[in-house]
């Protein structure tokens, strides 16, 4: 990426860190712009649809919509910080959902279905990682190939049909319909994945190494980090997230289908990047990615509430993205 923009803002942020003496702060300050953008969108929501936007059911609806892709975004954040990219996420989710909803799998009950989805995702992720780390393929191409192949496989397995979750296995559907304290279970699952992802990235050696591997792979290698194994694990982790996302989408749609997760890869990457992670790796945060995702989700929600037609929506969406990013830039430049 053209780095025109990267070096300049490093200064102000650093100062704040030095002054406060906490490295952790770095992240929060960077997110000010994103939070501001979200707040602005919320204001738009409140003004245009006062009676709908701030209702609890609408907020639940936003969170539920965000949860599937949110789980995937957590995995993508790891991969991108680690200097890679994963285009296969949507397709892996589709494949996992189809595999878990074949009649053969469904015969074993909901727990096996969940295990199956997670295993399929992780396995495919491992294959991605293997091709990239040991087969030395460029991540873009390896995961593109996986994306194509996984969709094909999902179509074959499902015979191009949508597979319903059988009534016996409605436990899975309950994830989306059962509510605890007003929130569907799947929102809790999403929150759990975010929390675990944050802890791993910020509090463990694995997370620390992820930054090193993405920031300067040669330095990481010379510091004794097994860069290949780490890369392998990153893609496996992303695959794992796709497996979990497959469970959520099965819960939400009551189906497994080869069409699930279409273009999720773009959405996930966009959320990660708008959240401040560098496409070239070595920098980024989970919180940023989730905020980025929420911005996209709230935009969609606003459109739904306001009933814009598609064409206008798209134009508006483009403009809002630009505005949000410029807003974020601004907040970065200001000395805080």
């Amino acid at each position: 990426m053209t780095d025109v923009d990267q070096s300049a803002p490093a200064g102000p942020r650093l100062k704040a860190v030095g002054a406060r003496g906490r490295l952790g702060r770095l992240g929060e300050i960077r997110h000010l712009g994103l939070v501001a953008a979200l707040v602005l969108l919320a204001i738009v929501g409140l003004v245009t649809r006062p009676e709908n936007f701030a209702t609890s059911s609408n907020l639940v609806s936003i969170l539920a919509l965000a949860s599937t892709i949110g789980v995937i975004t957590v995995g993508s954040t790891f991969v991108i910080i680690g200097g890679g990219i994963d285009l296969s996420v949507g397709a892996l989710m589709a494949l996992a959902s189809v595999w878990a909803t074949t009649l053969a799998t469904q015969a074993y009950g909901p727990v096996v279905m969940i295990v199956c989805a997670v295993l399929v995702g992780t396995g495919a992720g491992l294959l991605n990682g293997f091709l990239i780390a040991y087969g030395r393929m460029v991540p873009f191409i390896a995961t593109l190939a996986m994306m194509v192949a996984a969709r094909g496989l999902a179509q074959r397995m499902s015979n191009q049909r949508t597979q319903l979750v059988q009534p016996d296995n409605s436990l899975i559907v309950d994830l989306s319909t059962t509510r605890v304290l007003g929130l569907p279970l799947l929102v809790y699952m999403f929150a759990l994945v975010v929390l675990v992802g944050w802890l791993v990235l910020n509090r463990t050696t694995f997370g620390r190494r992820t930054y090193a591997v993405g920031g300067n792979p040669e330095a990481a290698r010379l510091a004794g980090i097994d860069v290949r194994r780490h890369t392998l694990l990153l893609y496996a982790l992303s695959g794992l997230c796709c497996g979990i996302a497959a469970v959520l989408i099965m819960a939400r749609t009551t189906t497994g289908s080869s069409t699930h997760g279409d273009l999720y890869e773009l959405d996930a990457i966009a959320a990660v990047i708008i959240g401040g992670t560098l496409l070239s790796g070595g920098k980024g945060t989970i919180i940023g990615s989730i905020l980025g995702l929420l911005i996209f989700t709230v935009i969609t929600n606003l459109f739904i509430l306001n009933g814009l037609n598609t064409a206008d929506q798209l134009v508006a969406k483009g403009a809002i993205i630009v505005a949000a990013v410029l807003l974020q830039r601004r907040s970065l430049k200001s000395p805080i």
Partner: protein
Amino acid sequence: ACTSNEPAAVSASSAAPQAASAGTDNDKPGEQVVIGFSAPAADHGWIAAISKNAQEAAKQYSDVTLKAVEPTNDINQQISAVESLIQAKVNALVILPNDGQQLNQVARQAMDAGIPVINVDRVFPDKLSYRTWIGGDNYGMGVAAGHFIGKTLKDKGVSNPVILEIQGIATLPLTQERSKGFADALQMYGFKVTAKQDAKFTVESGTQVAGNLLQAHKKIDAIWNHDDDQGIGVLAAIKEAGRDEFIMVGGAGSANAMRDIQADSGVLKATVTYPATMAASAIKLARLVAQGKGMSDLMENEVPQSITLASQTVSKDNVAKYLPSGFES
């Protein structure tokens, strides 16, 4: 655009709601109703016509407020969209789902919440999920195309013909039904489909797929293309390759295809309809259901549970009659 007028020109396919506009009591303003509407993203002529027909139908009635939500091709988003309509407590819902199975649950939620759902085209598997279904006859469409091609080739005395099929989106159940109908009808003439490919309903992929298919088959007898929108691309590829030894049948019934058929200047000899007017009908049905009215042409007190529109074969002979109901691609 040319769909909501001239009821007389339209045959049985959309007769029921059209008849209503002939001045029965049903058109008189009743209680105010809000109708929610959700459909896939209008990135394609037929779907675009669906949205537009729905809007125009709603505009005819002073007692109807149409609340259309963001059309999307992502199932997850469509679920959210419908959820938001349920929250908004609309009086009736008109849903053309991206996939009936995947949207079933949320439609059921609506019904459970007391909101009648008019299911358009792609059917929900669970009958408790909709009040009334109105849609085209995909199988019948395939059958119609199969009969036209089978009969024409039989008349010509062709044996072992090369018959190609260019589908829309392969993963849609409606595509699979169309193909089945087509194969079953050809069967009656002892023919079968030589090769089929899918072209995603876009002009461009129509060109790509047809361009390659024409290379794969040096002599072709007939092509059935499921969709007139992508058909523009298919025809362009045929023209580019300079081929004309075969006949082609279209699908869905765009005005453009019908003009071609009328002119009879190329390979396109017929198209089998799949009326985009169904959306307008669905809005009318939703209004009737919400207001608790029946369909005055029928003896029943209520709107029927399911309405299947017939697919017609439009060829040179009858094209004049259908041209006004064709949608502009």
